[in-house]
């Protein structure tokens, strides 16, 4: 009986409290009805400080973000920073942090505040993270996501809230398909169509193989890339002997490798992630019929020190396609130094430089469109910001010279193929010099 009462008492208390709030806040219900102007985008507390007569804050179709004279420019991210894929997002976040440091921590004399959400590399996580970001109207831009699934589910929410979204590591081709892209989306990462084509070209032209097998792990990234490779490989006259799939949590790949061996391919392409990728590399050497004659090739999903630790000596001589770090501009060496100093280690994944560029594209666009009030308040039109990012042309970034096309692809995609050497395995470092580049 006692517990029963206490429960209702609690409910009652809560209701009374909320009722009191509601009674005092009739206006609170209205914002959704208001026209999509500045009023619809409530501003930070200090925005109310009246601007002197004569200055007209800008208006914008999507609303204006107002940053008070002492408030920071709030930059949001939406990366996977925990779990098995955490390295991907942490790598990107570090890239942005270095970019902010290089700006002295400031944009237009405002401090930069950088925080965001772990989107968990899943559709649900992406949508929840997007909702949390979209609910906070102090954000000026969202950098992310890490995985394509996150942005597919969360992108519409961010887009509707007026944000510009720039991803450093989404590579799924159809994100920038005009039929599927949502407004405000850009990326500095390469489109996987490019990587698949480069890998196929390398196999056919450089390695001179005619038959290949593919393995993906049931992730959209790996499946897309394996298919892109297979299409291009067959188009170029090669033959795909088998298209296999595994699960990323598998550990015993010898059966599937034995099955592949029965078709006698000259090469296996497995654009999957570190754990399974390193096990396949190792076990391929132990499966009779594959041995040393079959060429192994993985993609940027395995381009990480942990891969060499996991695969050991079996990785020596194999190939990996990845962004071409040698094509990166001179600033990259300095970036690596700063990274080492700040985080005590080398980058943990492949897209840090792309994240650095993503922030700088945003920063350049912001400097172009932000209007400064006489008291130092910043006004940023959200549509204007999108337009400015879209207009990015010949921007000198770390990853190359970036130009955004109408579909939001801003990358200057240099993909190269690397060969793993003994010292890569011994010291667990990614190869620094490409083995082959398209056009060689």
């Amino acid at each position, binding site marked *: 009986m006692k517990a029963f009462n206490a429960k209702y008492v609690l409910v009652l208390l809560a209701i009374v409290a909320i009722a009191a709030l*509601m009674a005092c*806040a009739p206006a609170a219900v209205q914002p959704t009805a208001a026209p999509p102007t500045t009023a619809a985008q409530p501003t930070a507390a200090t925005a109310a400080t009246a601007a002197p007569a004569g200055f007209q804050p800008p208006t914008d179709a999507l609303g204006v973000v107002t940053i008070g004279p002492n408030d920071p420019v709030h930059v949001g991210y939406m990366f996977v920073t925990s779990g098995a894929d955490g390295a991907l997002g942490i790598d990107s976040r570090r890239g942005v942090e270095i970019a902010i440091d290089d700006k002295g921590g400031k944009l237009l004399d405002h401090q930069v505040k950088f925080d965001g*959400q772990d989107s968990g590399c899943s559709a649900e996580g992406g949508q929840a993270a997007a909702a*949390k970001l979209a609910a906070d109207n102090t954000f000026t831009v969202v950098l992310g996501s890490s995985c394509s699934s996150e942005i*597919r589910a969360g992108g519409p929410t961010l887009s509707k809230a007026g944000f510009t979204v720039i991803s450093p590591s989404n590579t799924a081709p159809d994100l920038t398909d005009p039929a599927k892209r949502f407004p405000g989306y850009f990326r500095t990462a390469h489109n996987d169509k490019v990587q698949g084509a480069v890998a196929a070209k390398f196999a056919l032209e450089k390695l001179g193989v005619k038959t290949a097998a593919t393995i993906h792990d049931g992730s959209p990234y*790996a499946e*897309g890339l394996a298919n892109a490779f297979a299409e291009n490989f067959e188009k170029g006259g090669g033959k795909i002997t088998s298209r296999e799939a595994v699960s990323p949590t598998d550990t015993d790949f010898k059966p599937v490798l034995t099955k592949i061996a029965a078709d006698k391919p000259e090469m296996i392409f497995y654009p999957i992630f570190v754990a399974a990728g390193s096990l396949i590399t190792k076990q391929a050497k132990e499966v009779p019929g594959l041995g040393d004659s079959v060429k192994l090739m993985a993609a940027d999903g395995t381009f990480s020190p942990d891969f060499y630790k996991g695969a050991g000596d079996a990785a020596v001589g194999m190939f990996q396609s990845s962004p071409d770090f040698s094509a990166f501009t001179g600033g990259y060496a300095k970036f690596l130094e700063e990274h080492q100093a700040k985080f005590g280690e080398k980058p943990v994944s492949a897209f840090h430089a792309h994240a650095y560029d993503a922030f700088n594209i945003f920063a350049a666009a912001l400097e172009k469109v932000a209007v400064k009030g006489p008291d130092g308040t910043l006004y940023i039109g959200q549509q204007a910001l999108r337009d400015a990012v879209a207009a990015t042309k010949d921007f000198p970034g770390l990853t190359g010279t970036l130009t955004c096309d109408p579909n939001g692809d801003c990358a200057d995609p240099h993909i190269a193929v690397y060969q793993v050497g003994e010292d890569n395995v011994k010291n667990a470092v990614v190869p620094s010099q490409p083995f082959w580049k398209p056009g060689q």
Partner: protein
Amino acid sequence: MNASLTAQANSPNQTSMRAWSVALRYGLIGGAVALFLALVGMVEAFATRYVIANVIDLGTLLLFLSYLGAGYVAIKRSGARTPFEILSQGAFAGFIASVFIALLAVVIYAIPGIRTIFINASPALLAILTFKMGVPAGLVPILLSGVIFGAIGGLIEILPPSLRRSLIYAAMVVLVFGLMQDLLRVTLQKWKFLDPATSFTFSNNGLTIVGAVTLFILTFLASQLWQRRGNEARARYRQLPTRQQQLLGWGLIAFSVALLLVLPLLVGLFFSEVLVNVGLFILLGLGLNIVVGFAGLLDLGYVAFYAIGAYTVALLTSTSLEIVYAGGNPFWLALPFAVFFAVLAGVILGIPVLKIRGDYLAIVTLGFGEIIRLIVLSDFLKPILGGSRGIELIPKPFIGSFEFAGPEELYYLILAGCGLAAFVAIRVKDSRLGRAWGALREDEDVAEAMGINLVSTKLMAFAMGAAFGGLSGAIFASKLAIIYPSSFNLLLSINVLAVVIIGGMGSIPGVVLGALVLVGLPELLREFSDYRLMLYGAALVIMMLVRPEGLWPEKSRQRELHESQQEEILSGPLAADEEVAREGAAG
């Protein structure tokens, strides 16, 4: 059975010896907990979040709470009653606990290589532990804080209960406001007139000191007031004529309904998103509750029906070019199909497992759930089901020109779904079928002997549970707009089961509460997602040890468990050992 223990402890000398050894024991436990929290990374991760701006962060608070807990439990168990004993023994327990942290600090300082094993034993952690003073200077405040918080813990135990309760409430409110600062701040932004109050309470980086103190005092006073006057209010309510009581009751219900209807407008985008997620789990929980709670059939593959509902809607409504053969239909046309196919799957699963009982059933249903996920993931059926890339471009439902576009609108859809499901569940629970399920749950053989048709009764349970799962999946698909096979993994089945059990098996309000606690709370604390599953697991264990009937138990079930618990006390091993075990688990 404790007669011998008390007999031994009769002489005062022995009493105090025993009390000190109890203090030592809980000090060791508290220290182990603190050490674990530090090494597992929680202290460092939580230290980034200030509860009160630049005064105290959550990570340090965790350590202090370990000391405090050690002191509190030690005094509670040792039976110390004089102020000196309480202070000294509490402080001793806290001190012992803090020694662990001091030792950790020394180890991190002296052996940097420790980090290759315990990755969180980092210089950053050392800085937090030693209050940025380093070793050895920082060891003094560590041990001092142990002594102080241990003593405070001891003091709390001897406060008058009413005072203690108010203090704990007040501290908890401050903690909750500190924890949820960013959410509360963002939500409060919507209400401009509250700006002065908001900036009074919150700084950029946690609560302001004055804000925290004000909150603490206000809650304390409110709690005291309620404790003094609450009984009067309740008594007055009971003295009202029945008619007026009813009227008040209806008023309350009407008010709650009205509140539910305007909730998204009040709380904004993110809370609405969380509510929608909670709603999906309430629907799933209500469905699984029928299977597990009502009929007693343990289903570990419930996610299968969720997947079938979601994929049906996706296939029938998607405008994606890859999935052309059935797509493009409106949500409302697809919905009945989603439920239908889920029910069909429920029956198809049900038939082969009719004769399988208990844990065999659990593993077979688990397998079924996995089979469904693997099939939708497979390359083999990719041309039909989309494979690993899922199905995208699933449109939102429309009513006329009203689009259930975002969480604030979808909220109403899920609210309607939950309302419907709850209504059905309540009605069916007290029906003939519901009673048949009850009999089935108690004893299958007896139920059969009573003339209950096991086949149709079991199949009805599977079918109805599947229907709710399908409905939830259907809404999930249109909410997410794209579905991947990876969304339908075993973890989800287990989550739903946990919602049902934590809420209280067989209890419908329990499911709602369970979903709010297990789905809502972790969503609100996304920053700490790294520790989410660990805390989730610990919560499940502690819950089962302390309150196995669930948060809001069904009445008959509560009685049942209560009885078995008493029997446990009757026939179990030494009760004191059990309590030790529970304390350990709580850490």
